[in-house]
């Protein structure tokens, strides 16, 4: 097991460097000169050649690419992402609180998704082919195909405006979580529900289930074994989905005015605030790699076969 962990961690580190380098180079490939972008972002009326040169030196853009990359990366590792062109404050003071807000939303959403899709998945798998199974599958399919940027505003209109029982937007107490979490769960729940249901059904046709039943184990125990094996596929799926959700919050955060990184990133794109975009990419990438690693380790911990491979 220890060997496996070491091997996976060693594989993750170069991936992080490759991705960080790619994102850094891409930003530098941008057709707009960062210096010009910085000046524009500050509403400088006339951009002269001289001014551009000055800004370049000021932002350290006149140094060779690799040196800049090294400086930028070592800064990133200390959570120093540079200065925002627009807001004139450090990017980290902008992005870290926003990241925490997104993390809160993602945590609550993933718990909801895991709970609901497991409950529905198990329920439907045990009643495969029944009316309840078909009904739940149909409803969840409809939910999944509803775009969140459509159902979100409609829910605001219905629950917050017409019924006036929930806040329309922003972050605050627990009630602020309800609508965004529901809307975000909609787009993911169908997938995980199907994953659990189908893997339960596949597992219940396995030989070991037959032998357990033949040995006279009660349904409760047999189902526990089926669930244990089915969750193996689902758990690594869940872990992979969490960083995907970090990126997927963009729409929901904008619909519900949730002050998270997705919203920050979109406004940075409009402002052409490159350091913020760069920081966004690197943070999400780091989390993506981290969670992929965790997913692998968890599935290795519960799946004895993989541990040795």
């Amino acid at each position, binding site marked *: 097991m220890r060997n496996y962990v070491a091997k996976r961690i060693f594989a993750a580190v170069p991936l992080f460097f490759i991705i960080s380098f790619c994102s850094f180079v891409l930003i530098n490939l941008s057709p707009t000169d960062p210096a010009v972008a910085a000046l524009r972002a500050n509403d400088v009326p006339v951009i002269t050649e001289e001014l551009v040169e000055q800004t370049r030196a000021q932002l350290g853009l006149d140094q060779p690419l690799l040196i800049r990359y090294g400086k930028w990366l070592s800064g990133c590792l200390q959570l120093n992402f540079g200065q925002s062109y627009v807001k004139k404050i450090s990017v980290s003071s902008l992005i870290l609180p926003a990241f925490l807000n997104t993390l809160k939303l993602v945590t609550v959403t993933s718990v909801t998704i895991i709970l609901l899709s497991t409950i529905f998945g198990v329920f439907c798998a045990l009643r495969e082919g029944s009316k309840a199974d078909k009904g739940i599958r149909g409803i969840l399919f409809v939910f999944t195909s*509803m775009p969140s940027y459509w159902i979100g505003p409609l829910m605001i209109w219905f629950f917050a405006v017409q019924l006036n029982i929930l806040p329309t937007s922003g972050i605050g107490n627990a009630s602020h979580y309800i609508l965004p979490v529901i809307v975000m769960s909609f787009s993911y729940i169908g997938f995980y529900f199907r994953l659990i249901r189908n893997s339960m059904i596949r597992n219940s046709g396995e030989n070991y289930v037959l032998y357990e039943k033949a040995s006279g184990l009660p349904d409760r125990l047999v189902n526990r074994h089926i669930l244990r094996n089915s969750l193996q596929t689902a758990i690594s799926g869940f872990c992979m989905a969490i960083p995907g959700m970090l990126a997927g919050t963009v729409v929901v955060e904008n619909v519900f005015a949730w002050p998270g990184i997705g919203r920050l990133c979109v406004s940075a794109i409009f402002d052409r605030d490159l350091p913020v975009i760069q920081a966004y990419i690197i943070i999400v990438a780091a989390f993506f790699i981290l969670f992929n690693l965790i997913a692998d380790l968890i599935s290795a911990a519960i799946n004895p076969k993989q541990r040795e491979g």
Partner: protein
Amino acid sequence: MSAWKKLKQDRLAMCCLVFLSSVVLVGIFAPFFAPNNPVAVDTSLRFAGPSFQYPLGNDQLGRCVLSRLIYAIRPSVLLVLFALSITVMIGTVLGLISGYYKGRVDNVIMRLCDVMLSFPSEVITLAIIGIFGVGLQNILLACILTKWAWFTRVIRTAVMQFSEQNYVQFAKAAGCSTFHVLTHHILPMTLSEIAVIFSSSVCSLILQISGFSFLGLGMQAPTPEWGMMLNEAKDVMLSYPTLMLPPGIAVMLVSASFGFLGDSLRDAMDPKHEPAVTKRKKIRSTV
């Protein structure tokens, strides 16, 4: 082909196919189907209800909602299909090379795919827009960049499977050129694989691209696009919520149809899977 026959028996899949083909046709010939100019502003008709001239009413600028909906098929569906076709082509070429030649070329391509796939596509899209600026063409570029790796991998697996088969080995031994073997013996076999991944990725891509337009990162006004129509409708939602319905339902129907079609295609291609409809028929004939 038996897969086509199976698909024809699947009533839902056929409905989706007919619906999607008509959507595509209406989109291509939008000027013939749209009753009005989609960008013509008429302030006297702001928020007008449905009428004979304007079947779905008018929006906040008095533009014809139905015409905008029809013209929006072009960026929302046709452009997505176009971008995806390019992606499929890239994926096919790389997948063929990678799967047929194997060895070092394969290794390099697969490592590249790994890096691309280890990254959520939303982030790559945001990065591309962040770097190259707002606009639909950049989103489509991002879509090509994020999806090619996946297509390459699927097609490579299929190619590897088929290039081991006897008739391909025979063609090689008989002295057919590599190009001939690839285009005549391997490519046709992978078409079914391509069809399945194509239709299921259209589904998610339509949702995603309209989503970016909704955020204002994609198509720019005044060109109609479903996501953007939703964005505009959202601003006046409190007083005129019905404007939310047409573009939302359009996105939902089209993406769900592609999703259904993808599922049915997969089932039809799977020799083990027997469609539900034929089962019912069998019972009837035995009873």
